[in-house]
């Protein structure tokens, strides 16, 4: 009974989005076949008599009827269907949370899938962020359709890819095999490449190319690192089937060869760091985030980065057991500070608000990396809380920025004025999301940044933390000045063109969740502690 349910709980997060994606594929085929059927019927008069006179025959109207009538109905259903998988992920995460309390872990498929507290925490974040992003997607797609940018099948393709993306992320989170983890993360790259290049403009193609090339190169390095650790594990006498199994490796890491592990970990940090937006292979991030559709940006920034980082958290356990804590600590600290400095410097003269948000993601990932580098229980709890808070706030910010882009037609900060006057709720949501990203209380990012800083000073890493704080201050100044320029001031006219509230409830929900996490963790407190414990916070 327990076996079955745990297999079910571990499978559903990955399988459900895949199933939804499949459903979309099937549903998407239907109108496409419809239009395929329609093509000959329109083609016939073309072949017969050249250009048909408009309105004289039914054939001219038929494709439009096919195109418009079903989507109006189908899209509504499709919108809601997209929410099934986030809801399912959240539900599984909640059920899993009850099972993993006290540091236990669930396994399935002979250890290929495994859930511990970290898994559950990440699933919760993935589910919550996906809920916000998927709930914001219909509005985005409607805009795209309005602007004529969405070709017939692109809506369906969007849904399919997003669901596949979710499935890949969930797989990356629930697997215990480091090889499968790598495969899943690389799969996210491939899936999102199409989402980044969704619009097929020059810039989006460029962004997609950079994204794929840089991330693939980076993640290839991570694979090389994985191979080396596998080699070390084999040499340490771990059987082939278990040499990439994380619990086994973590338990027996002290027998790994230090030199090989060191080389492997360095490559893994560089590789997964690329996916997590850390220096040096970070440069894809602002381009991809600014070009991807807003809900996708939200997902990428809110969870993809953290899912990649969660992989690093797992590897860090192995490295610390094999090498002692100093190696990863120095490596991650240096990388975190470089990333932070770079993000802060590039925000100083930033002119594009989506890029600004992207650099802000780098800033927050580097804070998480710094917390990981510190590595005490408090620091790891804070880093995990930061992952959650950042995911929620950033997804809200990106979704709101998508609405702003639609409203104003420009991504240039200098051309957006008086948002609060123009669309009070939207401007307010964007402003509050940015405030949350700037770590104002009551949003949880304040608590987590404070926790990271506190842990850093306690662990004797005062200087790196102090430098980080001043870099964060620089970023703060840049973001505040720019956001204030965007949302404050008189509106363009007396009349406010407000978003319908149906587009805004996900944003409000996200902000409320972020604020609630900052006030009290409630039942999540135990889970967070266990998760931090799982990844070495002891």
């Amino acid at each position: 009974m327990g076996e079955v349910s745990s297999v079910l709980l571990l499978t559903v997060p990955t399988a459900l989005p895949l199933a939804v994606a499949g459903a979309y594929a099937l549903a998407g085929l239907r109108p496409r076949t419809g239009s395929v059927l329609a093509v000959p019927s329109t083609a016939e008069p073309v072949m017969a008599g050249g250009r048909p006179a408009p309105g004289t025959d039914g054939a001219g109207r038929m494709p439009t009827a096919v195109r418009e009538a079903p989507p109006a109905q189908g899209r509504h259903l499709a919108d809601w269907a997209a929410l099934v998988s986030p809801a399912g992920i959240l539900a599984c995460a909640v059920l899993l949370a009850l099972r993993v309390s006290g540091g236990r872990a669930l396994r399935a498929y002979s250890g290929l899938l495994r859930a511990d507290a970290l898994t559950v925490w990440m699933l919760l974040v993935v589910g919550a962020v996906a809920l916000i992003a998927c709930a914001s997607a219909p509005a985005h797609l409607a805009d795209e359709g309005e602007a004529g940018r969405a070709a017939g099948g692109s809506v369906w393709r969007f849904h399919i890819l997003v669901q596949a993306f979710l499935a890949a992320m969930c797989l990356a989170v629930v697997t215990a095999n480091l090889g499968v983890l790598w495969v899943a993360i690389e799969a996210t790259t491939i899936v999102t490449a199409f989402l980044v290049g969704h619009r097929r403009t020059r810039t989006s193609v460029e962004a997609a190319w950079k994204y794929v090339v840089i991330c693939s190169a980076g993640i290839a390095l991570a694979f090389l690192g994985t191979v080396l650790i596998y080699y070390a594990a084999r040499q340490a006498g771990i059987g082939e089937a278990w040499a990439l199994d994380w619990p086994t490796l973590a338990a027996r890491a002290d027998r790994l060869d230090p030199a090989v592990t060191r080389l492997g970990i360095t490559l893994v940090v560089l590789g997964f760091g690329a996916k997590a937006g850390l220096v040096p292979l970070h440069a894809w991030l602002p381009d991809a985030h600014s070009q991807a559709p807003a809900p996708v940006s939200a997902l990428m920034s809110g969870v993809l980065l953290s899912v990649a980082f969660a992989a690093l958290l797992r590897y860090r356990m192995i490295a610390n057991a094999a090498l002692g804590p100093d190696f990863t600590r120095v490596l991650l600290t240096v990388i975190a500070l470089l990333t932070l400095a770079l993000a802060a410097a590039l925000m100083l003269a930033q002119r594009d608000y989506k890029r600004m948000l992207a650099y802000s993601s780098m800033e927050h990932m580097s804070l998480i990396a710094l917390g990981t580098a510190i590595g005490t229980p408090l620091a790891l709890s804070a880093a995990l809380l930061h992952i959650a808070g950042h995911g929620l706030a950033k997804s809200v910010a990106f979704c709101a920025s998508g609405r702003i882009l639609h409203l104003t037609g420009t991504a240039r900060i200098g051309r957006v004025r008086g948002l609060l006057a123009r669309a009070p709720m939207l401007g307010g949501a964007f402003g509050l999301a940015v405030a949350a990203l700037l770590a104002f209380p009551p949003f949880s990012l304040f608590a987590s940044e404070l926790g990271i800083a506190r842990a850093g000073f306690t662990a004797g890493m005062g200087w790196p933390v102090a430098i980080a704080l001043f870099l964060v201050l620089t970023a703060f100044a840049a973001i505040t000045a720019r956001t204030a320029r965007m949302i404050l001031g008189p509106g363009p006219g007396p009349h406010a063109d407000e978003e319908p509230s149906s587009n805004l409830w996900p944003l409000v929900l996200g902000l409320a969740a972020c604020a609630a996490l900052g006030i009290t963790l409630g039942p999540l407190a135990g889970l967070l502690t266990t998760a931090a414990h799982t990844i070495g916070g002891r």
Partner: protein
Amino acid sequence: MSEGLFTQLLDLACGAFLLAAVIVLWRRELTAIVRVFALQGVALAAIPVLLGVHERRWDLVVVGVGIGVLRAGLLPYLVRRALTALTAGQQRYGTDTGESRETQPLVNVAASLLTAAALTLLAYAVARPLVELDPTPETQALPVGLAVVLIGFFTLVTRRRALSQVVGFLLLDNGITATAFLAAAGVPLIVELGVSFDVLLAVLVLQILTTRMREAFGTTDIDDLRELHD
């Protein structure tokens, strides 16, 4: 197979593997590069086959054959197809836009070759602990895998044509696969399958993107992709 013959064959395969990488760096014609890349795939496939024969692990031989099909057959085919599509357009307009040539790499060929030499030395230095951990003929050849990884990365950094970058990426990947086989006779099958599938998909994606790039920019010179910047 005797120990000595095995070592010699393995070294031969590894040598060919490294040589192919260097030639990729040397040549400018994309068609030639793809051909060399295919040959490298053969050399790569030879490694697991040799290992399998030597250790009498037939599964490894099968994997090796699979690798060979993918790396020496399918992937070069895909790249070549993309190349043909690009040059077809070129022939149609009757202009030489240089789509089929890596006319001006960011680092010139001579310097590239010297760098490759330096990178190979670095790979030997870095691989020292790997070799020391378990000194067998296979691990002795590990630096080759690492050197190809570095050379592949270098290609990625310095080559301007989109397809050259694809080849660079594939070199990088070949190097990793070689390293995996040389170090530990390959990763578990499920991972291997996943990795191969991912690489295939990545190449497909890149191919599609190359086409779109050509549509959007009129060229596949990556250096022209500078619209997104701060």
